[in-house]
């Protein structure tokens, strides 16, 4: 079996969690360093997986199989394909940058990092497990810590936001859980193994019946229009690193679930429902952009932009299922998950910094901030331009691929979402103009800009966006073989 690297990736945060739990709350610095070291180790191991993954061979690699509860067929089966590697990398980057972003936190540091790391463990687990039971198990682990994280460390109607988020996500799980059990039962294989289930041919009627439950269940977490309401409110209320993980990684769990479970196990159901869900996704793209245009709070703008950008992911998946430009659409969807994850992490990390300094995230309170915080503003501008789909930054490529697939598959949707680019540019530039340009507001003259090491996590994310903007091949080669495998089914 070799070196169980995936288990080690999972162990880093797990051990950190145990250590932090055992540390007295007063030893703040030790807690921080534990989190930082564990995230750096996870990142290093993820890079190792990235480099070690044989993209040409494709398929599942780094496999570890240990029977867990043989009587019902639960297996500890860890393995990653190209998609898994990309998302592991995303999670590690956001986790690492997130820990550094929250370095200055002073309220209940121990508990904060404990919950945050728990969330990260869940996300890692989902991306690497090949067992349906563990999938759901990790999925719930990832979702639940959001509640205390927002409730305790949040701002702006945090009780409401935490409750709303929890209700939506649990409602999603309530749809999901019976659907997953139904899949297990219907197959009658006595195993939760995703690999085995994927080979089972479910009847068409069963697939068509179960698919929407599973899709909507996962879709809620992916910010699927019209069940996106929890996401902007949640983004706004959460502390910055939690928003980073939440928008950057957690929403990807939903989309990943759709790909790894719904589409993989229920292909006929996916084909049947694709036109409808593609319509919802496209509506989300346009709708999110327009609503973002009217927001007065930085984080709400980003929140609705996430609805819009995640719409592109879901649209890509549904277009891929339709089978006319499958490869481009799936590639676009997965690449967009990665690019959007990094981009929103960058957004929230920077907005969080501005908020920590100014204690305001109302756009109208600012103006001319570019002169007072040139570094923070420059970084925000990079993220904004990435959101607007500028070439040279990572988001351009996945958006282009999805547009391409849309023009080929459903030209009407293609035209609508490409035209929405104008609205996207409008809401991004509106923020620039109102908050960063114009005469500086003397009220903020004393604000300190990003300094020294504070630049580092943000610069890292900027570098990642630029790297994949210039070298999209690095991503497309990685996910290409998994895409070909998936696309062959449609």
């Amino acid at each position, binding site marked *: 079996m070799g070196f169980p690297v995936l288990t080690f990736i999972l162990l880093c945060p797990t051990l950190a969690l145990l250590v932090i739990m055992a540390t007295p709350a007063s030893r703040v610095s030790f807690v921080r360093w534990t989190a930082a070291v564990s995230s750096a180790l996870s990142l290093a191991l993820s890079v190792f997986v990235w480099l070690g993954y044989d993209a040409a061979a494709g398929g599942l690699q780094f496999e570890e199989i240990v029977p867990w509860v043989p009587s019902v067929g639960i297996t500890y089966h860890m393995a990653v394909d190209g998609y898994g590697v990309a998302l592991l990398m995303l999670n590690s980057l956001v986790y690492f940058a997130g820990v550094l972003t929250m370095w200055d936190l002073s309220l209940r540091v121990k508990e904060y990092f404990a919950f945050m790391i728990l969330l990260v463990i869940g996300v890692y687990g989902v991306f690497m497990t090949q067992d349906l039971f563990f999938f759901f198990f990790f999925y719930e682990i990832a979702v639940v810590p959001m509640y205390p994280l927002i409730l305790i460390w949040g701002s702006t109607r945090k009780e409401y936001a935490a409750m709303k988020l929890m209700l939506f996500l649990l409602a999603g799980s309530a749809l999901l859980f019976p659907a997953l059990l139904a899949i297990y039962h219907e197959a009658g294989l006595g195993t939760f193994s995703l690999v085995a289930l994927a080979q089972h041919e479910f009847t068409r009627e069963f697939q068509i019946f179960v698919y929407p439950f599973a899709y909507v269940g996962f879709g809620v977490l992916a910010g699927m229009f019209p069940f996106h309401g929890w996401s902007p409110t949640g983004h706004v209320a959460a502390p910055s690193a939690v928003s980073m993980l939440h928008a950057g990684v957690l929403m990807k769990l939903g989309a990943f679930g759709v790909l790894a479970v719904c589409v993989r196990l229920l292909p006929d159901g996916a084909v049947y429902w694709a036109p409808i869900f593609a319509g919802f996704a496209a509506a989300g793209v346009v709708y999110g952009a327009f609503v973002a245009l009217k927001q007065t709070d930085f984080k709400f703008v980003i929140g609705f932009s996430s609805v819009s950008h995640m719409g592109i992911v879901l649209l890509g998946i549904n277009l891929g299922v339709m089978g006319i430009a499958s490869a481009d659409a799936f590639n676009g969807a997965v690449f967009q998950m990665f690019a959007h994850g990094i981009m929103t992490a960058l957004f929230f990390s920077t907005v969080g910094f501005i908020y920590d300094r100014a204690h305001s995230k109302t756009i109208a309170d600012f103006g001319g901030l570019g002169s007072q915080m040139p570094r923070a503003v420059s970084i925000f501008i990079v993220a904004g331009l990435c959101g607007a789909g500028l070439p040279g930054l990572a988001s351009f490529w996945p958006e282009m691929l999805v547009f391409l697939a849309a023009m080929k598959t459903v030209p009407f949707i293609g035209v609508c979402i490409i035209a929405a680019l104008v609205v996207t540019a409008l809401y991004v530039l509106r923020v620039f103009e109102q908050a960063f340009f114009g*005469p500086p507001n003397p009220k903020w003259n004393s604000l300190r800009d990003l300094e020294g090491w504070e630049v580092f996590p943000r610069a890292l994310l900027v570098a990642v966006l630029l790297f994949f903007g210039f070298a999209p*091949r690095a991503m497309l080669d990685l996910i290409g073989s998994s895409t070909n495998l998936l696309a062959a089914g449609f």
Partner: protein
Amino acid sequence: MNPTAITVATTFAPFLAFAVALLFFMKRPVLAKAIVLLGGLVSVVGSLMLLAGGPREPVRFLWFASGDVALRFGFLYDGLSLSFGAVVAVITFCIQVYSIGYMAHDPAKTRFFAMLGLFGWAMLGFVYSVDLLQAFIFWELVGLASFFLIGFWYEKPSAAAAAKKAFIMTRVGDVGLFIGILIILNSVGIFDIPALLDPETGLRAALSPGMLTIVMLLIFVGIMGKSAQFPLHTWLPDAMEGPTPVSALLHSATMVAAGVYLFARLNPLFMASETTLLTVLYISTFTAILSSTVAMVERDIKKVLAYSSISQLGFMLMALAAGGFFAGVFHLITHALFKALLFLCAGSYIHHLETNDMEEIGRRGGRKMRWTTVGLVIGGGALAGIPPLAGFFSKEEIFAALSHRGILIFQAGAFAAAFLTAYYTFRMIFLILLPARTEEPAHAHGHGNDSPLPMLAPIMLLTLAAAGVGFGGGWLARLLDVEREHHAITSMLPAIGIVLAGVALAWWDFGRRAATRTGFITAVKPLHTLFTNKWYVDAFYANVVARLTDMLAGLLQTVENKGFDDSFDGAARGVVETGSFTAKLQSGWVQSYAAVAIAMMSILGIYLGLR
């Protein structure tokens, strides 16, 4: 040396300069300036070496592949890219040199020069692109660089607004272009420009005539945005909020030139779609006239020049759409040179006399700035089309192309626009050279009699170019590999006549001693109002388009708050209230339990008894 290596150096040197300046020289403007100028110089040398080498086969490298899309990255070496690439490099470098003087006192020099580097990279990358998607990427980057440079003085709200407007309006055009490009990819599966142009296997063979027309119209929408054609032209006059060297760059060889260049690049495809050509002719002719009329009544020298750019871009597109490939490209090049010159002269006046108002420049003794004034007159003469300056020859070619096409309305439109061009150009020259004699005497302003050498040297160089480059038509035609017919002097007479008439009218209105200096158009009140309000296009955008967008966004925001949020909140509240209602059954009062029990038992008893 290997041409590929030269091209990589030519295009990427400015980018390296940009990156290095921004990353390392934020606090050292002198080094930033030096490295950007060095990058500019490398581009000039490289592009001239490529030009000297003459046309050769394109080179291509695989960039990445996804599904059935394979993106190649490469360089195209034909007469068009070689000649225009050299013009871009030279003008960009001139403007960088000029900026040393113009921006000498600006605190953010590094950012400025870095962005000039970015701009040079984007435009040169665009010009040499062999692949349509590659070209689109650089096209977007040109837009990005313009955004940063127009908004360079971002603390000025007007500059921030102008930058946003430029970005959004060109974005609107880019949506059309992007859709067009994706349709091309979906139908032929390639982006390679030479392959697309191939008459046997290219786009013309792959698409039905109707589809080809749609694609070409979509691409033209992109060109309208970039090259500021009606109705997407209003960003360009606002773009003068940027520092003047930026305007010089934007209006001559970069940004706006990109649209016309793309048309020339895809010329054979446009030629295959008659509907598109007619549409282009109508739009460009209308644009040329509209913008000339606005230039007639503007007082701000940069605005006059901005509207003249729009009108000259209209001329180029008219020529191209009328089948005058050579005429269009020739005018693109001559215009790039003399328009850069005119903006640099305007900048010199503004820098020295601290005013944009033409009357004011005249009054403060603008004509005493000798080299600047020589440049203004030569550049203005070239713009108006006075023989033998550059603009005369290229405009002459345009008239010839339009007469071949033989549709009277476009010929008449071109003549009208040429007449107005001569009129407003000489209005500008007379206002500056012959200020009203009654006003205060010219007072010495600034230091010395003219701008510093870094500003004057580029002006002198471009003055020479604007005067002489018109004679290079034969050479350019050979480079572009097109037949160029000889025009008899008699066929040139109407064009010369119309220009002279325009100059004469300008002299009557502004030049002679007894001139009213208001312009004949003030006599026609409604037209004057229309022109001073820029035909109400801006007002239409502000009051109708912007408002409609805002209303739609507001509507959706209401849907979000009152629709989605409230209904989900309501659902949640419903659950809670159902809970509290049910909870009442668990009140803990024995009396009520007993009452319920008795009631239930009686009902049961009655039921059983009746049975």
